[in-house]
């Protein structure tokens, strides 16, 4: 029973096409039933279709009857057969049939307007005719329809109830029905019996004596079924084995058809392989169906569970009125509401302001927020809110809450009527304190650090040995941030305050910030200079563009002068110079990148507007105060040199006129030329050192830019020197470019051309 459902050997001889064509749907059903019943006969099981597959019998304990004799006091070998009612029934089967016939005839002769009955009578007789030569139900010859069995034998005998009662005891219809959905096979088997129930006159019509019928279910449904089975049994008695096998195939074919697919009969039986394929497909399909069913049941189960939960919770529906909900909302919102969002919810306010105007140009990507833009964004946000009617309501409510909070700002606890305990009114502004830090110690420390009496440390007051304490540097950076934040806040509130007062405050804060920058500390007292120390910390770099936004021209000049004068000491200069192998730590490269992105742009902007006099002075200072060969090895150093050189060149050519600057005087140009020559002479024979190692992955564009700036201002002789020095590098780069992918090569060539174009040449002119 393992291979196929019916326990047949499913590897059967190939079917011939005749058999296949015979397999229409209705035949399939018939065959199915026959097939099944035949099997039942062979295996000696009873006709109960379901019971045939019931493994209950296997569980019976057949052994251990050694003491039966003792127990029952009988000779067990000498068992009578008086309990075998079937046998005795068989004995009278003949009579029963006769009686049935008799009964039917009697009904026929009796006047009846039951059309159905009339119609079915021939069917009934056919039923018994068919069994000629067949095996009888009970295994002994039951001789069918002997014409001599005339109805007169027992004319008054009612239609035999025995047959139904016997069958019925085996086969209560209820069991069968229950088992129906279990297997499609069975469903199929039973179809005929359900489709034509009235093949036998309904038993209500028959004068069944009370108590003669089986207990339990009414015989109506049962009777026709039994007859049907009997009929089919008898009909199939002489069927051949091959026929049966065909029908097995058809069972499966019918099954497939049942599952919504057309029965793939044509493929069937063409070859054995095809059949096997078919079977495999069937099994697969069956698995899929089962899976689907499982999924369906799972879904259904979940849905039910959800519904059950919902229904469970439904009893709490409407427990809170809208008023209650509003009240709770108010309690929650009151924690978040503030009349000064910029101080209490700074991050949110600025963040939204920035997000709301992504298109608005900002001064470099480094700037977290433009000070002026914040207020604008804030306003717009309010307008947006106002346009939403729902938000208006909330706003009004919020306003009320704010006023409430203002009226009693001290309370940190709230007891509600009827509530157990108190509701803490801790908020972001007033959190529950977990740590009690004594401020006494820090106070004394501060006072110690700044005996001058300021409330904050008068920072990098240079320690005795002349080295600035790193902590003090950090402290002064924070002080700068503090001033910058205040300044930015002030800018946001510019419209709100009186102009005079505002200006006063602003100037005061700018001065404070300037003080904190420590730019004006005398050079040489400490090393490095405090301002340089600030610039050596990344957050110090980051604050510079925000500082410079509030600086005036003089402060700018002072700052850049101080920077240039102490350039060597900058971390991005002194540590960012690679050795012979050009290895620079990634963290330092990041610092360089940060410096280029934060500090350089505002300075570049300043220099781009500076007159030649200032540029001249700065470059002179640069050369004098620093080891220019050393500085020229660093990216930042080259950037500064390039900045000065190109600005001077623009001014020399009268570019300053557009900016409202007077044309540079002859004397200034002379001075510049002098400075340039000094620079050139110092760098001569060292130009190649500015390049990063040839094989490194560092983009050397900044070097070519510098060389270009040098070349533009150079005399013919200087140009010649320049070309001679870097000639090798140019050729190497061009050769390298011919071997690498197109896009990278283009970039390399463009870099080289920066320099070559300044000389009036082009990389394409080079002969390699």
């Amino acid at each position, binding site marked *: 029973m393992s291979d196929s459902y019916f326990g047949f050997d499913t590897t059967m001889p190939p079917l011939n096409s005749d058999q296949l064509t015979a397999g229409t749907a209705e035949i399939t059903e018939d065959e199915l039933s026959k097939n099944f019943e035949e099997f039942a006969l062979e295996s000696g099981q009873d006709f109960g279709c379901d019971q045939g597959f019931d493994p209950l019998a296997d569980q019976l304990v057949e052994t251990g009857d050694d003491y039966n004799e003792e127990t029952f006091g009988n000779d067990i070998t000498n068992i009578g057969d008086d309990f075998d009612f079937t046998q005795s029934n068989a004995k009278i089967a003949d009579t029963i049939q006769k009686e049935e016939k008799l009964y039917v005839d009697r009904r026929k002769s009796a006047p009846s307007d039951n059309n159905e009955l009339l119609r079915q009578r021939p069917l009934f007789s056919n039923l018994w005719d068919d069994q000629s030569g067949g095996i009888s139900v009970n295994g002994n010859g039951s001789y069918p329809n002997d014409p001599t069995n005339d109805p007169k034998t027992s004319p008054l005998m009612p239609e035999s109830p025995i047959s139904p009662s016997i069958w019925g005891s085996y086969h209560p219809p209820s069991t069968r029905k229950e088992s129906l959905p279990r297997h499609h096979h069975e469903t199929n088997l039973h179809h005929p019996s359900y489709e034509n129930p009235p093949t036998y006159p309904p038993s209500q019509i028959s004068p069944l004596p009370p108590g003669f019928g089986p207990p339990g279910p009414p015989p109506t449904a049962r009777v026709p079924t039994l007859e049907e089975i009997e009929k089919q049994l008898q009909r199939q008695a002489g069927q051949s084995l091959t026929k049966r096998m065909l029908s097995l195939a058809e069972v499966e074919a019918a099954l497939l058809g049942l599952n919504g697919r057309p029965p793939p009969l044509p493929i069937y039986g063409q070859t054995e392989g095809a059949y096997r394929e078919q079977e495999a497909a069937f099994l697969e399909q069956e698995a899929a169906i089962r899976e689907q069913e499982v999924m369906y049941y799972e879904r259904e189960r979940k849905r039910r569970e959800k519904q059950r939960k919902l229904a469970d919770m439904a009893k709490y529906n409407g427990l809170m009125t809208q008023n209650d909900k509003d009240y709770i909302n108010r309690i929650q919102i009151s924690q978040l509401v503030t009349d000064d969002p910029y101080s209490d919810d700074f991050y949110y306010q600025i963040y939204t302001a920035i997000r709301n105007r992504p298109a608005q140009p900002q001064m470099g990507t*480094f700037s977290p927020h433009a000070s002026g833009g914040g207020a604008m964004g804030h306003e717009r946000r309010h307008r947006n809110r106002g346009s939403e009617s729902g938000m208006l309501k909330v706003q009004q409510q919020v306003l009320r809450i704010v006023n409430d909070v203002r009226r009693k700002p001290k309370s940190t606890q709230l007891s509600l009527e009827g509530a157990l305990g108190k509701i803490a009114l801790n908020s972001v502004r007033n959190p529950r304190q977990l740590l009690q830090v004594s401020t006494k110690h820090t106070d004394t420390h501060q006072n110690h650090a700044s005996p001058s009496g300021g409330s904050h440390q008068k920072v990098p007051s240079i320690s005795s040995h002349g080295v600035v304490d790193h902590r003090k540097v950090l402290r002064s950076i924070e002080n700068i941030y503090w001033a910058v934040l205040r300044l930015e806040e002030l800018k946001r509130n510019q419209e709100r305050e009186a102009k005079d007062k505002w200006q006063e405050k602003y100037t005061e804060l700018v001065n404070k910030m300037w003080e904190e920058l420590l730019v004006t500390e005398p050079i040489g007292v400490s090393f490095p200079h405090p301002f340089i120390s600030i610039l050596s910390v990344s957050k110090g770099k*980051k604050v510079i563009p925000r500082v410079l936004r509030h600086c005036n021209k003089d402060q700018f000049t002072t700052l850049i002068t101080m920077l240039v004068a102490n350039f060597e000491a900058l971390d991005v200069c002194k540590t960012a110079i690679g050795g012979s192998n050009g290895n620079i730590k990634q963290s330092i490269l990041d610092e360089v990148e940060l410096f280029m992105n934060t500090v350089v742009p505002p300075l570049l902007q300043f220099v781009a507007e500076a007159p030649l006099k200032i540029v001249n002075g700065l470059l002179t200072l640069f050369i004098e105060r620093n080891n220019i060969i050393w500085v020229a090895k660093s990216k930042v150093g080259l950037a500064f040199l390039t900045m000065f050189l190109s600005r001077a060149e623009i001014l020399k050519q009268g570019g300053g006129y557009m900016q409202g600057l007077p044309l540079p005087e002859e004397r200034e140009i002379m001075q510049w030329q002098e400075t340039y020559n000094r620079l050139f002479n110092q760098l001569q024979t060292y130009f190649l050192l500015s390049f990063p190692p040839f094989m490194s992955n560092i983009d050397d564009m900044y070097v070519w830019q510098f060389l270009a700036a040098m070349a533009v201002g150079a005399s013919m002789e200087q140009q010649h020197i320049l070309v001679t020095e870097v000639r090798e590098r140019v050729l190497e780069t061009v050769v390298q470019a011919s071997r690498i992918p197109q896009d990278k090569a283009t970039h390399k060539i463009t870099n080289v051309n920066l320099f070559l174009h300044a000389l009036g040449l082009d990389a394409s002119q080079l002969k390699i």
Partner: protein
Amino acid sequence: MTLIGQQVTVELKNDLAITGILVSVDQFLNIKLDDIHVVEEQKYPHMMAVKNCFIRGSVVRYVKLPASAVDTALLQDAARREAQQPTVPAPR
């Protein structure tokens, strides 16, 4: 601005770290998460069946936010401002 609907990781004081979609946060920083999974599934297999949760704010150690949703520079400024709030006398 709001991180509701974004994926966050909440680390609790019992070292359990839960990743899930943020549903809501209240003034106690109680947190509701949806579609959750525990970061160390092997260690806490009993959490595999849990699909959403409410976390009492007091048991939260850290909330890890998606980096793209946080402006760190601005956050630093905000922290500086908070440090300058009236309770602490501002440096003058």
